[in-house]
């Protein structure tokens, strides 16, 4: 069983859901983010948030995958003040929905004053609602941006155990773990982190508080990043307990602090969910061996029924 705690499924196809289910992904978390280009109206924001607590949850359930999400105003769109003010007003309407496991992904992009203002505002919202926080660390000036994110969190008195710092790399991991945070790594081809490097990081730092995710989105990314990393780590001789922690148990422990994500959600789902929203996972039913195959299409089968 795997959990992928960072996926933007709203941008992914049913092939991806099928491949993830086949590979043993039982739950995933869809953080609120931008959608590749900035939104310009609060109305489109409401519809986006409504999709990730609505249709996307239904879609995932059809493949036997439990869908959770985080609610937040992302750092890029925080720079549109007029939009940001209105989004901050509507966030509380979504933050307490079923299956919302954190406020996120929030943090810095270019480390502007507006980003800072709304990062702090949302930290306060998370504290008020007792929710964990998922922090997006910036692509540019990452090390400084990561430190600054932690400084601000501590200034607001947030316990590091309630915060997942995401998109880490070799340069940030040491300090993030030292300061007591959960350290997540996005296995994203070409940019954030590769899984061979990931395997070395776990070898160096152990498996405590380390979380692997795919961050798959609208770019060239890998929805099977978590199961593939597990398989690679196994091949390279990591103990099973370490693999389980970084690809399943740590994410569950961190986001489970919301009270909104429990192992029983997929092992013993409520009857009403089984009737409506969750098809059940065929792997959990003993239906098939997990298998990792490249999703996608080819021309070998010409028949379309």
């Amino acid at each position: 069983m795997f959990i992928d705690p960072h996926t933007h499924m709203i941008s992914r196809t049913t092939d991806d859901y099928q491949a993830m289910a086949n590979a043993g992904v039982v739950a995933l978390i869809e953080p609120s983010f931008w959608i590749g280009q900035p939104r310009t109206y609060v109305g489109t924001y409401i519809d986006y948030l409504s999709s990730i607590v609505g249709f996307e949850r239904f879609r995932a359930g059809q493949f036997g995958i439990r869908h959770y999400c985080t609610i937040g105003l992302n750092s890029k769109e925080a720079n549109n003040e007029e939009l940001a003010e209105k989004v901050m007003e509507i966030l509380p309407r979504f933050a307490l929905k079923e299956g919302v496991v954190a406020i996120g992904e929030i943090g810095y992009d270019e480390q502007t004053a507006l980003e800072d203002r709304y990062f702090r505002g949302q930290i306060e919202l998370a504290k008020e609602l007792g929710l964990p926080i998922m922090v997006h660390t910036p692509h540019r000036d990452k090390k400084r941006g990561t430190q600054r994110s932690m400084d601000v969190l501590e200034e607001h008195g947030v316990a590091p155990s309630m915060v997942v710092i995401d998109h880490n790399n070799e340069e940030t991991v040491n300090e993030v773990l030292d300061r007591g945070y959960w350290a997540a790594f996005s296995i994203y081809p070409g940019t954030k982190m590769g899984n061979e490097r990931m395997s070395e990081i776990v070898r160096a730092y152990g498996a405590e508080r380390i979380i692997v995710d795919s961050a798959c989105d609208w770019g060239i990314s890998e929805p099977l990043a978590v199961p593939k990393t597990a398989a690679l780590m196994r091949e390279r001789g990591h103990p099973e307990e370490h693999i389980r922690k970084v690809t399943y148990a740590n994410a569950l422990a961190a986001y489970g602090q919301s009270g909104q994500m429990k192992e029983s959600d997929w092992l013993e789902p409520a009857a009403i969910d089984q009737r409506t929203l969750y098809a059940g996972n065929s792997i959990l039913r003993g239906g098939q061996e997990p298998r990792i195959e490249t999703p996608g299409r080819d021309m070998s089968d010409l028949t379309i029924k």
Partner: protein
Amino acid sequence: MARPAALLWEWLCRQVDPAARDWLTETATAAKGSDAALFKGVSLVHRRIGKADLSVGPEDRAAAEAARPGWDQTGWSTDQAARIWLLLEAGGIGEAFAVRLKTLFSSADVAETIAFLRGLPLFPGPERHLFLAREGARSNMRPVFEAVAHRSPYPREMFDENAWNHMVLKALFVGAALWPIQGLDERANPELARILRDYAHERWAAGRPVTPELWRCVGRFADEEALGDLERLMQEGDEREREGAALALADCPLPRAQALLAAAPELQAAVSRGDLTWTGLGRTL
């Protein structure tokens, strides 16, 4: 005679602990005067109440039928009951209620959407919620569609012919059964019969099957062409298709229909004995 809200309260009290009950009453009081308190309270229901299946016995069902004819709680859960109760208790009436319901819909998660749609036959000012009901009946999420279409008197009472016909057709497209739709026979009409026959021919042309339930809305209005379809099913169909065709022929007043049915005496007898019914057939599919 008890109001639906009073019945929901009675049923909830049997299943939730006293702390959750107190939370509900306090939330309802706060929500009467505050949109924010209502929205927050409705969202929090799943944490405070949980989502067990709602236990409703035969006496409860009888009381419910007396309070609101057609109200059917089959498949309801405690979180749905509590959300509907909060709206009935604290949502207000008239336009104020409609505006609050619409706002709730715009930020609803999928479980809330289902609860609100199931509440439609109980809510004040039913004519004000037609847009939401029709949006639900256009949904591609089957459980959302079924929350409007199944086991509810709302569409039967409120939908005009076009809305009704498209709801029945949509059921076939999302794979929802027809038999749990209330008023299927009463709201049958020649236009729906035509739409469904066109749909069947479209499916057959593509080499795909159609549900035998479909003929339920065709039988009474069957013309010669439709009887041709039914005749073919009686001859070439599988067991369920033949049963559906037989039931449709039994509904059709034309002499040719009765002759076609008489050619299959076992099915004819099963229909007249009441052993073969639309609901019974639907349940086996």
